[in-house]
């Protein structure tokens, strides 16, 4: 019995989450109507928490690309690339991703989580040092931990703290990996990549940037925060996902280092995972093409983001430090945030609830992700719903 007793803790967490009526981790989308609308408990619901930044999940060209791939290549690859071989499309997407980031090498993984595990466990080994932003995504933590390297965290976006740690590493600094994200997914703030790059160069370290939430969103060509901050060519490894702006599922790494090609031989998460199905690769390729050719998607996304951020602010809500397509509203205690999130859902607004220890500090947040596919009316409806619940604060 002892082996299973540990689930009592999970049961207690679940019971607490269900106190407000609905479990925020188990919302059922009975029907998906569009990138921004679904049916939840029979109710028409605006989706304001699905990271569908460019709204490409229902894009006709992406759907058609996926449909054609299923018809011509089948529903799946039935195994890993090492065992079953690669489909030509996998390699084509890798070339396109490398070209997109203006580097020579690209590698595709079956999930974003797998990409971070796969790259970090290949790049790092016991005895190596990695400097990790404290607010980094769980996949980055897990990848670092699985590698067995020495993990030193630095306070979120604190360049001085990073510099101090590089200094303390002494000779090891020239051989360490700095790991950050582009856009941080809870608070919607960006890494100060220019300053981080300056430190990386000063100490001779390598830099990995996870652009999962910033791909397609930041930069003139949608290449992410590194592009937006003018340091695209200084990043050693870009990682990211196909499950947000690209509207599908999967992950990638792109790099100017030729050793990325050798990661295929040593990365267990890559070697032992079935490769992405043809429809996923095909729709991702089309979505990547759209990021490159339809800058108007980003313009609409940012217009919606600015309106939501300003709307919350003018209603007196405490929002994140900068305008971005991730807008987090600070609600303080969990006891306030949980009913607030529940009432929002009952009003037909789906958002994300973040409570400690999953939030980046001791406060609870309701997080919205904006989409280019949100209409002006939907953005206003989200603001209105929040505003109508102010008495719960």
């Amino acid at each position, binding site marked *: 019995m002892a082996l299973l007793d540990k689930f009592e803790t999970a049961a207690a967490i679940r019971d607490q989450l269900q106190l407000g009526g609905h479990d925020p981790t188990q919302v059922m989308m009975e029907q998906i109507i569009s990138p921004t609308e679904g049916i939840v408990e029979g109710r028409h619901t605006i989706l304001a928490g699905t990271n569908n930044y460019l709204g490409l999940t229902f894009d006709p060209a992406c759907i058609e690309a996926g449909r054609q791939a299923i018809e011509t290549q089948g529903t799946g690859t039935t195994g890993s690339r090492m065992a079953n071989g690669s489909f030509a499309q996998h390699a084509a997407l890798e070339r396109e991703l490398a070209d997109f980031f203006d580097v020579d090498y690209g590698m595709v993984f079956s999930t974003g989580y797998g990409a971070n595990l796969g790259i970090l466990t290949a790049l790092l080994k016991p005895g190596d040092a990695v400097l990790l932003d*404290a607010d980094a995504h769980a996949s980055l933590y897990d990848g*670092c*931990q699985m590698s*067995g390297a*020495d*993990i*030193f*965290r630095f*306070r979120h976006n604190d360049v001085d703290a990073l510099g101090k*740690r590089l200094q*303390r*590493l002494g000779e090891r600094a020239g051989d360490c990996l700095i790991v950050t994200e582009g856009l941080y997914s809870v608070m919607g703030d960006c890494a100060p990549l220019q300053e981080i790059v300056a430190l990386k160069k000063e100490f001779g370290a390598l830099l990995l940037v996870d652009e999962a939430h910033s791909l397609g969103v930041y930069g003139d060509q949608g290449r992410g925060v590194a592009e937006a901050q003018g340091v695209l060519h200084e990043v050693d490894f870009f990682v990211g996902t196909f499950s947000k702006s690209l509207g599908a599922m999967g992950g990638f790494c792109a790099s100017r280092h030729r050793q990325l090609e050798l990661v295929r031989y040593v990365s267990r998460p890559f070697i032992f995972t079935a490769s992405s199905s043809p429809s996923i690769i095909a729709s991702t390729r089309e979505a990547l093409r759209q990021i490159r050719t339809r800058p108007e998607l980003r313009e609409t996304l940012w217009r919606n983001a600015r309106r939501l951020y300003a709307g919350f602010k003018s209603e007196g809500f405490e929002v994140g430090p900068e305008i971005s397509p991730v807008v987090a509203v600070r609600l303080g205690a969990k006891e306030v945030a949980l009913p607030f999130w529940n009432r929002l859902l009952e009003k037909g607004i789906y958002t994300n609830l973040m409570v*400690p*220890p999953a*939030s980046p*500090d*001791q406060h609870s947040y309701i997080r919205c992700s904006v989409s280019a596919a949100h209409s002006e009316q939907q953005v206003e409806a989200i603001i209105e719903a929040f505003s109508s619940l102010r008495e719960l604060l």
Partner: protein
Amino acid sequence: MNTRHDELETKIGKLLASYLESSNHPELERHGEINGATNLVSDFTLDSFQVMEFMMELEESFDIMIDMNSLSNTHTVADLARFVQQELAGPAE
């Protein structure tokens, strides 16, 4: 138990009390009970985020770096004092 270790325990205890205060921890009023045997998780119900936050406080205070993987057997204030003492002494030759 040497003097240096006792001093470190006391200092870490004070830092823990100060962390509980700054984070408005619900068990703040029990800070007087902190001693070497105090377990951060079971006595003061620090969650994983708070433990990591507190580790960063220790890094700043003692000007050391704490490898996340090195803390798996570190549970009490006395364990932390031993760890800090080793770090301050530098790597074994």
